[in-house]
């Protein structure tokens, strides 16, 4: 039994079958990469996991409970956090507030009318948030407005916002897309470091360098379905994968 089990998930938009009988089993504590060419349905699949989209048929079981038919905030409260392809952060707020908000969400649930205490004097929450910012190397900028950050820093901030929730499952949608080589390596180091905490991760990624430095299992998607699954080394040599993903070129 994996922590996340996806069975026979189908999703179509009009005549386009975006997901076609997707099966996926993610082991607890693993780093599971999903690769595949553009339009393979990777992002659609991720959207089905976090409640942005609802699959037409199939089941998604996480930690023993179904993720279908519940709202995004309930899915998060169940322990699933997501980093987006374009960072979704609170652009008008300070970095510290950006991390404090998810900390409150994890501790106090999806709604609390906590309108009398000072947010910046809740030392438990504040310390946790500052610690997290230190972990991702953004502590010096904690009072800056998040919207003013560089793209790489925004991603790191978003990662911090997810990690501070201590999720059971972390979904990363192309965490290094559009990053310089140096930033990419920084992110890989960061993900490796947090990997030690045993958070299960699903990574969607185009950059093979990232995939092979992080993942311990790889699923290959093409045309809405998983065509191959295995250890990174096996996937590298799989002729079907090379055909679908790389158009026959060799890795």
């Amino acid at each position, binding site marked *: 039994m994996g922590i996340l089990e996806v069975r026979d998930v189908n999703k179509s938009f009009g005549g386009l079958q975006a997901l076609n009988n997707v099966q996926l089993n993610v082991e607890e504590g693993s780093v599971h990469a999903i690769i595949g060419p553009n339009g393979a349905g990777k992002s659609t699949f991720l959207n089905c996991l976090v409640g942005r989209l609802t699959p037409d048929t199939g089941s998604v079981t996480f930690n023993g409970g179904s993720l279908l038919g519940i709202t*995004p905030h309930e899915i998060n409260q169940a322990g699933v956090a997501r980093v987006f392809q374009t960072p*979704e952060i*609170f652009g008008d707020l300070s970095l510290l507030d950006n991390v404090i*908000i998810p900390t409150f969400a994890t501790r*106090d649930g999806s709604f609390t009318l906590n*309108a009398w205490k000072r947010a910046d004097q809740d030392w438990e929450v504040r310390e946790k948030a500052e610690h997290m910012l230190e972990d991702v190397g953004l502590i010096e900028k904690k009072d800056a407005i998040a919207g*003013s950050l560089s793209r790489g820093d925004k991603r790191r901030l978003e990662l911090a916002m997810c990690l501070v929730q201590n999720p059971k499952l972390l979904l990363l949608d192309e965490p290094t897309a559009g990053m310089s080589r140096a930033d990419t390596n920084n992110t890989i180091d960061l993900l490796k470091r947090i990997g030690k905490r045993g958070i299960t991760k699903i990574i969607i990624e185009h950059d093979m360098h990232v995939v092979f430095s992080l993942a311990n299992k790889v699923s290959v998607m093409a045309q809405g379905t998983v065509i191959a699954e295995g250890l990174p080394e096996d996937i590298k040599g799989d002729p079907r994968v090379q055909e679908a993903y790389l158009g026959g070129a060799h890795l």
Partner: protein
Amino acid sequence: MITATPRNDLLLMVFFAIAILTMPIWLSPIGAAYPDLLQRFAIYGIFAIGFNLLFGLTGYLSFGHAAFLGVGSYTAVWSFKLLSMSVVPAVLFGVITSGLFAVVIGYISLRRSGIYFSILTLAFAQMSYNLAYSVLTPITNGETGLQLAQEDPRVFDNLFGTAMESGSGIPPTNLFGLEMSGYSGFYFCAVLMIIGFYISMRITRSPFGMMLKAVKSNQNRMSYTGLNTRPYTLAAFVISGMYAGLAGSLLAVTDPLAGAERMQWTASGEVVLMTILGGVGTLMGPVIGAGVIKYFENIFSAFNDDALHEIFSFLPDVLQDGVVAVVGLFVGEGWHLTLGALFVIVVVFLPGGIMEGIGRLSRVFSQKKTIEPTVKTRAQPGE
């Protein structure tokens, strides 16, 4: 920018309380220190503070807040008629009733955001306005407006014998015997405004307030962070509706009658103007905006051509007539033109309202101080 430490907040609070309570003194040079106007400053200040809790924090622009103002007024007058001339039940019921209205209107309107939310709230307010004029006449007394009458029951007053002797006319509204007109009325409203300001400050600094700012900033991220945006926005809407109800009931306290025009869209628009003029999302801004608008309304609308001729009497007659003709457009009936011009200037040059202007000025002054003695403060590289 002054950081929001507990100490600074306390200082701001003390400064605010003193400034409000001494208004009769420091506003007298500009001719604004008469009770009627001061009461309006305080009442509309409360209205704007509450409105800002919704608009400033969550970004949801309600265009129907006057409905709650009206509900508060009607409830207060009914409380005077049925229960007692004491202002305590009037204010209490005014706040509660408008809160209940806000729950219903908010629950429905908050299913949409942006312009659709604004239109929904506007529709509800106009509906309330028209209902007050037509179907609900038994409750609202239609066009005439709801007024007190000699033969009102006033159950509690009669029960406890605090009623005036018959024949002495309609008794005044009172707070434990203290008549709520003139300066005592102002101080009552002012104290409530200071309390309202304090509550709004607590809310703004609280985790709840932080969530409201998060609603404004990124609702998507909020739900993927495990937060349910709906109850947050509804709570903000209801709280701000209750502020409006408080303001409405205070309007009835200082002048015990209620009319449907209090619910008209112009009244809803006015509080939007006050908030934007003063500075959306700032603590002090809405209060300043409310003060400026009410001041302009009272002072500029009082000018007439004769008064203008007197002011410009130093000019030669021909010139005087011309100047009076032009300036006359902006005063008296046309004071809205002044307000409009002021509003345009503020929105174009100071999008953050008067508070941004104050912030810029204070920065200019503090920079002068720091640059002059030390030459080494070079331009800092950008973020």
